[in-house]
């Protein structure tokens, strides 16, 4: 198993290759990408910022916990930081498991833990030139007509 915070584009094929083993009947790759609209606003890119040392440490703890919980060490996770364009991968999770149900549960568990725990922040950049730090805990504004 391996996890890292990276500043370069994520190599998805390499990540998959890291977890592939003949003992596994299911290999799964989750890729989180930069979306062009958030809360009704047109997004042109996202700047990801991290508390690097802690993000690395916390991601390592999550992967170790996942290995314990799901009984496999075939887990490779990378989270990218820096300025990302639309469609670029910000996070990728490769997992492999003897059975598909285990692979899906494991992958889902890792992304949910990661979103709640690793100290990473994103500043969205909008078509009108403004930018804002996202706060997932803030109350959502009512939907605009």
């Amino acid at each position, binding site marked *: 198993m391996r996890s890292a915070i990276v500043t370069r584009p994520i190599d998805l094929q390499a990540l998959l290759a890291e977890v592939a083993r003949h003992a596994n009947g299911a290999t799964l790759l989750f890729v*989180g990408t930069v979306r062009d609209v958030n809360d009704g606003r047109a997004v042109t890119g996202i700047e990801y*910022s991290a508390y690097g040392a802690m993000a690395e*440490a916390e991601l390592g703890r999550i992967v170790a916990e996942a290995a314990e919980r799901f009984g496999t060490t075939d887990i490779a996770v990378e989270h990218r930081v820096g300025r990302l364009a639309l469609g670029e991968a*910000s996070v990728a999770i490769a997992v492999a498991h003897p059975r598909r149900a285990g692979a899906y549960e494991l992958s889902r568990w890792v992304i949910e833990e990661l979103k709640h725990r*690793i*100290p990473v922040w994103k*500043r969205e950049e909008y078509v009108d030139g403004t930018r804002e730090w996202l*706060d997932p*805990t803030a109350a959502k504004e009512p939907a605009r007509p």
Partner: protein
Amino acid sequence: MTVTALLFASYADALGREQLSLDLPAGATVRDALERLRELPGGTSLPPAPLVAINLAYARPDAMLSPGDELAVIPPVAGG
């Protein structure tokens, strides 16, 4: 004792810096350090009980600080 406080993202913007040294009495807690940060220009925009980490691991507000600790004040995380 001296501890290093780290600020990130919106908190760094609010206080206009990412790192500072805090001089605190022995036995000071995270809460004491946060009070000190709130007294700085822009400090009132810190929430009452932000997430914090000591030396790269999440910590509670009543955790005691030690000399040389790295105390990070962590805005709501938004990875993924």
